[in-house]
């Protein structure tokens, strides 16, 4: 056994309870090597899959890269695709940091979008300096409310957040059907996809890349809001007492309670903050891209966000990089489908492989730790 040779750095004091697999999945240690490796493994598995379906994986991946980064326009589009993933990724990540599993970023984003879209058209006449903050606050507030419900139910009634978030994701979809098909927000002249009335000009996030630089770029000021959110996430978690407490709750709620931190209060707070991030993402989609709320838009951001947060190790920089990677998948995937005749859904398959590898990695580490933790008496003396 190789463990025998290891110096016995672990004394009796290290008899801390083994971290659960869930904690390991959420907070995997080490540098960027393991995330990169898991993406590489997922890409190889994806290539095998393309081969099995009788296509050329090299053609597939070169089309994917070409589509995502081939021209300056594509690069800006990749960033546009990454913006909502950054916000929902932060939403999932901050919940993970506190030991909660937020499957509800999807629903929180949609509520944020609906609230922002409602305010944007309701107060459409206001000038931008007034309207923009209002719309941002509605987006964040809507998401925070929706996330807060989850935290409250968990804190007060002990309801598992996985169940509530799944249910609330579907609830808002049904509510949107009503709002946008035959409800108070329905646009009278909407043809095709049901939608809300357009938001006012002052609620639109402007395109920040001039036409002389990149023609017809859609890269809007939402990227600045997303960047601000990333900085806020970092500042909140690592530079404020609240952030310290949130991370303490995530590392072990019983120990945190011993230290006088009230886990229940923090559950509500962290889920509201998580919802606020996702809600801002929804507001950015409405104000930056569509100018109104469409029924059934943004169907998979919240689920991709789980992969983004896990791959980014719940760190601000990691979330941004993972979101850019998935944004490249999304935008490049469309090009791959039209130019290499390979369904853009290959991208979803690769994403699911990434998740599997992450889950398996946590396992490997939990096994090795467990083995090291239980030395035989002889080894302990040595």
């Amino acid at each position, binding site marked *: 056994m190789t463990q025998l040779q290891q110096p016995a750095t672990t004394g009796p004091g290290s008899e801390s309870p083994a971290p659960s697999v869930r904690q390991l999945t959420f907070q995997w240690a080490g540098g960027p090597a393991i995330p990169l490796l898991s993406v590489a493994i997922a890409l190889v598995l994806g290539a095998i899959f393309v081969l099995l*379906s009788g296509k050329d994986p090299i053609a597939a991946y070169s089309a994917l890269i070409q589509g995502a980064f081939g021209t300056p326009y594509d690069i800006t589009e990749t960033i546009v695709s990454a913006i909502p993933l950054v916000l929902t990724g932060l939403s999932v990540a901050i919940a993970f940091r506190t030991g909660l599993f937020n499957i509800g970023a999807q629903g929180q984003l949609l509520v944020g979008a609906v609230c922002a879209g409602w305010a944007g058209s309701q107060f459409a006449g206001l000038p931008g300096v007034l309207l923009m903050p209002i719309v941002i606050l509605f987006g964040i507030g809507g998401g925070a409310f929706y996330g807060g419900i989850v935290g409250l139910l968990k804190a007060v009634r002990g309801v598992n957040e*996985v169940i509530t978030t799944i249910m609330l994701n579907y609830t808002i979809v049904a509510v949107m059907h009503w709002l946008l098909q035959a409800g108070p927000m329905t646009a009278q002249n909407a043809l095709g996809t049901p939608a809300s009335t357009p938001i006012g000009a002052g609620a639109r996030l402007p395109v920040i890349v001039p036409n002389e630089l990149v023609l017809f770029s859609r890269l809007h000021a939402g990227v600045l809001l997303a960047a601000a959110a990333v900085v806020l996430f970092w500042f909140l978690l690592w530079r404020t007492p609240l952030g310290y407490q949130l991370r303490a709750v995530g590392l072990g709620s019983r120990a945190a309670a011993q230290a006088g931190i009230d886990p229940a209060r923090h559950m509500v707070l962290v889920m509201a903050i998580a919802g606020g991030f996702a809600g801002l993402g929804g507001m950015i989609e409405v104000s930056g891209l569509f100018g109104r709320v469409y029924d059934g838009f943004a169907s998979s951001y919240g689920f991709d966000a789980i992969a983004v947060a*896990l791959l980014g190790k719940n760190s601000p920089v990691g979330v941004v990089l993972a979101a850019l990677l998935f944004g490249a998948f999304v935008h490049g995937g469309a090009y791959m*489908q039209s130019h290499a005749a390979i369904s853009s*859904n*290959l991208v*979803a398959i690769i994403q699911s492989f990434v998740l599997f590898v992450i*889950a398996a990695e946590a396992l490997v580490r939990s096994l090795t730790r467990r083995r090291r933790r239980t030395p035989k008496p002889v080894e302990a003396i040595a």
Partner: protein
Amino acid sequence: MTAEMFLGAAVLAAMLRLAAPIALAALGGVVTERSGVTNIALEASMLVGAFFGIVAADRTRNIWIAIGVAVLAGLLVALLHAYASITLRSDQIVSGMALNILALGLTTYLDYQLYGTTGTPPDLPGLPDVHLGFLSGLPYLGEAIGGQNSMVWVMALLVVVLQLFLFRTVPGLRLRAVGEHPRAAETVGIDVRRIRYVAVLASGALAALGGAYLSLGVAHSFTDGMTGGRGFIGLAAMIFGRWTPVGALAASLIFGYGNALSTSLQGATIGDVRVPVQLLGTLPYILTILAVAGFVGRSRPPAADGQPYEIEGHA
């Protein structure tokens, strides 16, 4: 609005039709969670069941082979989940999410590669309807249950069988013991991992039947993501039905009735106000949240639900 919109035979027939796939997924949920494994990949099993059932029907033109292939596909997804959550003891929610994304990506990918943008062939064999001749004379029942699809009856049968199995047989008792207190179960010689494997596999097969019913029984075709979250509604029905087969059926019927109403009340008005039928779609989710929070009865999961189990002396 008329009483016909609420209680007409057509509404009742639609309720059963819409409840059946939810109930099948919910039965799967009951079996797996009673054994202590959370399986949110029921949606994935359903979707691959729906898709590969159609592919097999297209290739073999035999409905029985198609059903078999559908169940096999659902089993395969469940096997992956069982391996990840029982053998590897990895996070069951992450594994389930990965499988849901995989199933959606895989079926949409293969649908595009096999059938392009034209869709699945129109003349596929389907699951037969059961025409109950002796009911055809009766005015109400004849229309409500006289012509239901065979899978609806299979579902009803499975509810009874599973209810008896779980609560009236020794293997059923063992399965529940494993979900409540695996350590105690193992102490009396029950193979915890084996029972959990069987339960997760069974849940995949049941969900796949629900998916096959949607594609082979109702639509006679496959469209991308056609299960539309019914696996998740099945989980809701399981919770609302307090983790019992009969309860899950009752919950599925309530949800199915809500769905049926949203069709029959389309365009109906109270005074001048149009009935917001779309909001009926929120019924399953809100009822479930209320049930879990203890506002509508108290819905308590099996004690060891979702917790990986480490065999004594294994580490």
